[in-house]
């Protein structure tokens, strides 16, 4: 039976690592782990999910998806003891970690130990049985069933709790905030067993006599002990600690600092009326002239509504030397302009088109707060991401009114969903609206090929023209039947020609830049990605289609905004955003350095 189930276990582990459908137990496990340990980044620090078939002594047998442990040695002397560790150490970002072990059979003598050990501990013993070989089993901690003693890196135990035997469920809880550990028996806490625990401990069990069998629960099933209640207590404690953190000795200092942060944030994002009102009511000076703020606001609106050409022009008018001194910035803006042309939103193609309403025209958003230079990083930072969407929702609603005069045409139905869609896109699962396709697509294909031929660098993400052609034809057929609505450059032939021309200019600008300033891989990739849009008959539904999404205007917008501010000797990023970013980074660093309290101090909790 054990052979059969261990086969099953092997299969299971394949399923776990593969992407195929997870079975119910895996689903439940994942859900529970996510709920219990939301602060853990499993890409960096995976959670223990089963015993490790590699990290065990030979007297240990595993079965039932590597959750059941049985003893298969002789069990004659304590030297026959054997242990197994879980697949991964306990991440500090758990804050509080918990697993349970059910005693299926106490076997001959019930010499079972449940606990923790560091990597490198001899697996040839129960957790903590060292038998005078000091040093060997340093950092090994266990609670033994036969005598109820606790063993802490030594062979002599301390009286700790009751004995345990067949049918009992023993839990082990590691508190990574104060580095202690307590056990539970059948749902009852037995009190602290160990203090001053080192980091990176693995859940471990040890067995010593034949017939001993135990099952682990790393979250596959509900726990007998109410660990979530214990975690609630610690969450409350940590939050109280934060709330009570002493802030500034002097009266009013704290308040004025917060006011400054809010004011600078408003100014940064050019909410001039609000900034003005706020500064007035809090009696502060604004460090930028109102006109300047309004100028930035105007430019930002243009960028965010996809009217890049106008945005560049306005920037050049208002800040004459800015783009000249920043050729990379100009290049970036131009690339964006190209993308907007493809999108049919840039003013240069729009005046040529005159067909079909521009769905992207009425981008309702204001500058997305805090998306600035750190925007890319933010997608991998749950804290920042959450903050973004939160704040954006709050700010945008009143902003959309002020930007409405810029939308020359009424929004087509469905386009109003830009904001929610952008929220989703942050999580990487964007849905694309169906688009209209017509014979223009053929032209595009032709053009794409042309570009590819003219530039030996190959902008098509490695897709050669020979192989793409037949595929594209197939794709066209499909898209046509799908009755898509969106058209390249708004569907106008003249606009397409303008776009192609612009593409050529961009290409030569890129070459010029390379000659002047040397190679720039970021620029190169940017251009390549932009041109790649033309490789697809339906750019919006292509792998590079994300570029067309309105949300991609935001990093461009904030980069431009920052550059303008820099020329005025103002900070590139508002201090508020910086503080939030720093807090999030701090928490991530705490997780890495083993400070468990980061688990209960999400930045999101403090942004309402």
């Amino acid at each position: 039976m054990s052979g059969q189930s261990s086969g099953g276990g092997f299969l299971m582990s394949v399923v776990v690592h593969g992407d195929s459908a997870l079975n119910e137990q895996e689903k439940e496990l994942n859900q529970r782990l996510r709920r219990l340990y939301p602060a853990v980044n499993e890409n960096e620090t995976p959670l223990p999910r089963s015993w490790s078939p590699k990290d065990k002594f030979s007297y240990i047998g595993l079965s039932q998806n590597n959750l059941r442990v049985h003893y298969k040695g002789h069990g004659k002397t304590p030297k026959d003891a054997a242990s197994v560790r879980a697949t991964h150490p306990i991440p500090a970002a758990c804050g509080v970690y918990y697993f349970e072990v059910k005693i299926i059979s106490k076997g001959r003598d019930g010499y079972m130990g449940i606990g923790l050990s560091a990597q490198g501990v001899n697996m040839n013993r129960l957790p903590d049985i060292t038998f005078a070989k000091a040093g060997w089993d340093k950092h090994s901690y266990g609670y033994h069933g036969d005598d109820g003693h606790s063993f802490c890196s030594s062979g002599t135990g301390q009286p700790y709790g009751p004995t345990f035997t067949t049918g009992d469920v023993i839990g082990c809880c590691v508190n990574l905030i104060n580095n202690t550990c307590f056990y539970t028996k059948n749902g009852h806490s037995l009190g602290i067993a160990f203090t001053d625990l080192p980091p990176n401990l693995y859940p471990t069990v040890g067995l010593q006599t034949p017939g001993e069998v135990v099952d682990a629960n790393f979250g596959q099933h509900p726990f007998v002990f109410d660990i979530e209640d214990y975690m609630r207590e610690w969450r409350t404690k940590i939050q109280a600690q934060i709330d009570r953190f002493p802030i500034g000795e002097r009266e009013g200092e704290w308040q004025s600092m917060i006011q400054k942060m809010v004011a600078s944030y408003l100014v940064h994002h050019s909410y001039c009326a609000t900034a003005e009102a706020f500064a007035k009511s809090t009696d502060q000076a604004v460090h930028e002239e109102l006109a300047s703020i309004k100028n930035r606001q105007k430019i930002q609106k243009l960028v965010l509504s996809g009217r890049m050409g106008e945005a560049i022009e306005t920037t050049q008018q208002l800040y004459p030397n800015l783009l000249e001194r920043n050729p990379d910035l100009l290049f970036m803006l131009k690339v964006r302009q190209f993308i907007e042309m493809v999108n049919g939103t840039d003013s240069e193609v729009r005046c040529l088109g005159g067909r079909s309403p521009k769905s992207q025209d009425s981008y309702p958003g204001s500058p997305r707060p805090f998306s600035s230079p750190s925007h890319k990083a933010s997608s991998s930072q749950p804290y920042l991401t959450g903050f973004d969407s939160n704040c954006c929702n709050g700010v945008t609603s009143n902003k959309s009114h002020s930007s409405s005069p810029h939308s020359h045409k009424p929004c087509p139905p469905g386009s109003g969903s830009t904001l929610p869609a952008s929220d989703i896109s942050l999580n990487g699962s964007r849905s694309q609206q169906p688009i209209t396709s017509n014979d223009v697509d053929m032209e595009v294909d032709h053009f794409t090929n042309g570009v590819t031929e003219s530039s030996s660098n190959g902008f098509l993400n490695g897709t050669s023209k020979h192989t793409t052609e037949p595929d594209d034809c197939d794709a066209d057929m499909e898209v046509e039947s799908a009755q898509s609505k969106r058209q390249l450059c708004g569907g106008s032939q003249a606009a397409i020609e303008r776009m192609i021309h612009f593409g050529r200019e961009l290409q030569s600008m890129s070459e010029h830049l390379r000659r002047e300033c040397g190679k720039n891989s970021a620029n190169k990739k940017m251009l390549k990605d932009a041109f790649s849009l033309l490789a697809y008959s339906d750019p919006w539904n292509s792998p590079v289609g994300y570029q067309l999404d309105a949300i991609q205007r935001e990093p461009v917008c904030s980069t431009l905004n920052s550059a303008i501010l820099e020329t005025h000797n103002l900070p590139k990023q508002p201090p508020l955003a910086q503080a939030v970013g720093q807090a999030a980074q701090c928490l991530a660093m705490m997780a890495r350095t083993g400070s468990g309290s980061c688990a209960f101090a999400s930045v999101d909790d403090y942004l309402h």
Partner: protein
Amino acid sequence: SVKKLLKAPAVEPEVTATSRHYVDRLFDPDPQKVLQGVIDMKNAVIGNNKQKANLIVLGAVPRLLYLLQQSSSSMELRTECAVVLGSLAMGTENNIKSLVDCHIIPALLQGLLSSDLIFIEACLRCLRTVFISPVTPVQLLYTDPTVIPHLMSLLSNSLRTQEYITQIFSHCCKTPEHQTILFNHGAIQNIAPLLISPSYKVRMQALKCFSVLAYENTQVSMTLVNVLVDGELLTQVFVKMMQRDQPIEMQLTAAKCLTYMCRASAIRTDDSCIVLKTLPCLVRMCSKEHLLEERVEGAETLAYLMEPDVELQRIASTTDHLVAMLADYFKYPSSVSAITDIKRLDHDLKHAHELRQAAFKLYASLGSNDEDIRKKITETENMMDRIVSGLSESSIKVRLAAVRCLHSLSRSVQQLRTSFHDHAVWKPLMKLLQNAPDEVLVMASSTLCNLLLEFSPSKEPILESGVIELLCSLTQSDSPALRVNGIWALMNMAFQADQKVKVEIVRCLGTEQLFRLLSDPDTNVLMKTLGLLRNLLSTRPHIDQIMSSHGKQIMQAVTLILEAEHSIEVKEQTLCILANIADGNTAKDLIMTNDDMLQKIKYYMGHSNVKLQLAATFCVSNLIWNEEDGSQERQDKLREMGFVDILHKLTQSSDPNLSDRAKTALQQYLA
């Protein structure tokens, strides 16, 4: 009163003058000026205890009450008066006394009949402050039978009325009668919805109401288990309130509610809400991180919860090192607090007694059934020393709890043999027994009973300390519990005791008292007295000796008991005494010459109860035993009386003991 006037704190003349002015303004003919005067007074007294005392002394209260009650006063004025009175009540206990003496309570209760919510709230707030003071007689809430229903009806008016009224209820529900009054006026249905109020204060006060209502009240508790709050069972609402992120006060009070419901048999002791929620919550409350008050309350409630249930005791004994954790309760005031911080020392001193008695109570409850737990307790650091010193503490509460703890541990044979003897606990115990209140005496004498068990090494020294007289005096107590313990201890003492001890017991107790105890209305006393007699009448020389001096009275008593209406156990014990008498050399004759007694024995040999048959047969068997002088005559006499026939019949009994005993008896005739 005049006395109070004199006792009032000395006030500076200028303060008195301003105070005087405030009071004078209350008498202004212009109502507008009166109102302004009251408002100014309100602002003057806030947080100023001296000013409050002055105004009371100067007679502001009756005038304010007058204005408050006058229907001609504007609503605003009446409200401001209630606010000022509420403020005065916030001062010292003396303030409250003065207010109550001025009949503020009926005046404010009358005010509740108004239709103005703001005014009602002000009255309630003041009433609340008055009623939560320990100096206010609770009974004043129940004097007028219309008050409670009216308060119930006001509950729905606002968050404030809810908070104040529930707070009044929870402080004024002190007796089963109060519980019944509140229950009958729909307290449960009216207050239950407040448990999910948006206001924390309201939730908390409502919860407190339930804890006082449910305490030792089966009717309330049985009703509570079926109550739904917003579709959820009340027990589940309480469980949620025990969640570890809730304020400690709320966790603790919710745990009390469930504890009381459990002790009133409304919730089973093995219910998961008790085993997995209430018990762990209360154990947590005992931990060092909580306030001393919380630790006291937690330990007391936990002791109460698990008192009758060994399984809960076992779980608690292994939860969170509870037994070791309690040892910390004895470390106040700590040596650190004494030196570094006077305030802390004061605080610690104030709670030290409470902590110790709570710990003793909890130890007593933990160890009341399980031998392993008792062992664990006695092995706790300095445990026996702590009990010994606790027995002689000045605080009666601590002494009582310490002796309860000792009593609980004295149920262990092993501890009696070891730690009890090693620490000579009998000494302070004996001392405690001298002129202690009954409550303590009951526990102490009960413990003494165990210490006098024959295997207890403390038995000898206790005997030598002249305990017999003390125990004999206990048997004369009005309290049945003390009489039982006294006679019980004597019974234990007489078991296999020396002749000397037995004689001393009989001498000291006196036959008159002995016979009085044999007619005691308390069956327990009767049983233990018979037990004592039986122990006295063991081994032949003792039997003959005692019977020769008290035979007549003893035979009389035996006759009386056998003739009266008594339980089987009493009759059995009496027949056993008779059997012991029959075992004596000379004592036998007292039975043999008493034909009436012999008829009684015959009767019981044919009784329907096997135990009585057995005891009676035993008696006959002793009478006819061969190896003794005059056995032939006795055998003959009993044969004549038809005993042999009965014995023959009994050999056929389906009860093997009885038939064996009958056969053995018959063998005496064959020899």
